């Protein structure tokens, strides 16, 4: 740990948290009119990854993608505007919260079908292999994704071709209201099942930004060095309901003890307490950082709300492209 890294991780987590909590606070205004999956509580892993990846690395994600998009450097303004359905949104209002994209920083897209971007990420990895750079493709996935056939098909191909692909599984133990126990056999943990394929795997504490950062740093270095794909599993905890702005622990689908245990390991406080003790952060520094973040977030919401809606005619545009937009070089 260094003061700089501590600041980066703290800032990364606080920024994600502030964005998500601001969305939660304003969602009931009925101006953000799309299904929205918040990452509050799950900030440590994205913040850690953010500190390791380069803009030329590529990433894809799923329905709960705000944190991943931000971690990869995606434009905050464009994301908030997208959730507000404005033309300044990263998908011009076409896709909403679940469809984020910022190719300029390598965030190649998030989509709404569980597992749907896993093969896309592997295909991006294939393109990087062909180009021969040491960039990597990073695939964010939840614990339900390892129930999809597409995941195993993709895994097999990534290993077969020794592709520069990092699979990051954030295991928050639930898929909507469903615990792991009704979906996956408990005989082996997720990372153990995957390890059976002969890919490098590791599991870590997804609420500990410092150790996550360490694991990710080493793993990414190995991938860049041509050692092939890797799979990381981080256990973590989502604060709010699966989709939407509220807490839903009154529904009783997560045991009280489980909730309390995880709340005690809230990632930001946990990290900062230690970092302050170790002299890497100061309370004053954190306060100033938080203020800057709040200003940035407020500006993003102001930007979004001041932005125009897309003109009605855009509803029927973009069905077909008229020209090639990417290049292999």
């Amino acid at each position, binding site marked *: 740990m260094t003061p700089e890294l501590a600041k980066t991780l703290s800032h990364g987590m606080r920024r994600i948290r502030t964005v998500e909590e601001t969305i939660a606070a304003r969602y009931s205004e009925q101006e953000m009119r799309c299904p929205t999956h918040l990452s509050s509580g799950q900030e440590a892993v994205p913040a850690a990854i953010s500190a390791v990846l380069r803009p030329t690395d590529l990433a894809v994600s799923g329905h709960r993608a705000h944190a991943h998009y931000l971690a990869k450097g995606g434009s905050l303004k464009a994301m908030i505007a997208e959730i507000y359905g404005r033309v300044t949104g990263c998908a011009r209002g076409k*896709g909403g919260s679940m469809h984020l994209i910022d190719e300029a920083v390598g965030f190649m897209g998030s989509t709404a079908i569980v597992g749907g971007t896993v093969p896309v990420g592997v295909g991006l990895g294939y393109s990087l292999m062909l180009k021969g750079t040491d960039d990597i493709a990073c695939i964010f996935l939840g614990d339900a994704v390892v*129930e999809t056939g597409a995941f195993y098909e993709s895994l097999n191909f990534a290993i077969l071709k020794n592709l520069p692909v990092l699979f990051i599984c954030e295991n928050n133990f639930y898929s909507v209201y469903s615990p792991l126990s009704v979906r996956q056999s408990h005989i082996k943990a997720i990372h153990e099942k995957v390890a059976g394929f002969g890919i490098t795997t590791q599991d870590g504490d997804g609420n500990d930004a410092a150790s996550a950062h360490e694991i990710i740093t080493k793993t990414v270095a190995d991938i860049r060095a041509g050692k092939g794909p890797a799979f990381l599993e981080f256990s973590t905890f989502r604060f709010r309901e699966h989709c939407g702005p509220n807490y839903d622990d009154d529904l009783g689908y997560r045991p009280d003890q489980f909730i309390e245990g995880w709340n005690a390991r809230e990632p930001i406080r946990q990290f900062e307490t230690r970092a302050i003790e170790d002299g890497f952060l100061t309370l004053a520094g954190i306060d100033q950082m938080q203020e800057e973040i709040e200003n940035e977030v407020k500006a993003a919401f102001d930007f979004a709300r001041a932005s125009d809606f897309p003109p009605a005619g855009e509803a029927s545009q973009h069905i077909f492209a008229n020209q090639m937009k990417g290049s292999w070089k």
Partner: protein
Amino acid sequence: MRTFANEIRDGLDQALSDDPSVLVFGLGVPDPKGVFGTTLDLQEKYGEKRVFDMPTSENAMTGIAIGAALGGFKPVLTHQRLDFALLSMDQLVNNAAKWHFMFGGQRNVPITIRMILGRGRGQGPPHSQNQQSWFAHNPGLKVVMPALASDAKGLLLASIFDPNPVIFLEHRWLHNAQTEEATDMPIPLGEAKLLREGDAVTVVSVSYMTIEALHAVDVLKEQGISCDLIDLRTVTPIDWAKIETSVKKTGKLLMLDTGFKSFGIAGEILAHVTESCWSSLQLPPARLTAPDYSESTSPALTKDYHVRAEHIAAKIGEMTDKPVSIEPILNQRGAAHDVPGTWFTGPF
């Protein structure tokens, strides 16, 4: 007053209770929210072996439903959106649809696949597909699209106890629809329902479009234009007789569908009616459907996306060459355009 969702739930309950070989499973089936209220308490009542949650494995779970059916059971599999079931097209079309045929009638596959059709409030492109024409195009699948809350239970019971695979499409905007009457009896698949009578135009509709059509037809009736309104209820088998009888009377057809226009079910209905009612047709048969592009997320882009009662009324006016006022329809609208009613506040 009972809702469409209540009726679905009671249909499942009745099937589970009447026949120990009925199984109900799908993502979220035993949830506290019970798939929009349609599966509430069923696991408590019938146990974890007959009513259960599942992994996010839509393809295999469809094959597992087929296997359980071959093992003598009657599985009902639920998808919270049709869009997720695209993962299971192989099992649905290569196995379920063809099993009875390709094994020479040896064995039937009595499975029911509930798929919910999303719409509005930011559902966006991959949460709002209405791909009924895919299923209807495939011999061996029955396709049921209930519209009225009073039909929901009867059609579901008929689907569950039909010896064939049935795709049961529930429009999300119908779950809160209300009814006073309802039936405990299966409604035979393949019988459309004449909801309104008149001789101006034959309006044929499916699923949620029937709600908009009822609205339009009733308002027009007050303006002196009476239409036949036929709720298709099942797309396959389809009740051509009822449609043809009506078109032969009115000479005019307006078909309403929730899906994309081109190569959709409306095209088939226009084509068939043209073939079979040629000499009765006074006008080319017409259709109002979703356009040939996806529903966007931003509410600014969905205002004119869906066909609403006012469009139907205006179209009927055009087809009958009579002046029509859509004011009464517009005046009755309470909720924003992207929700089925004020009760709906998201997130999905």
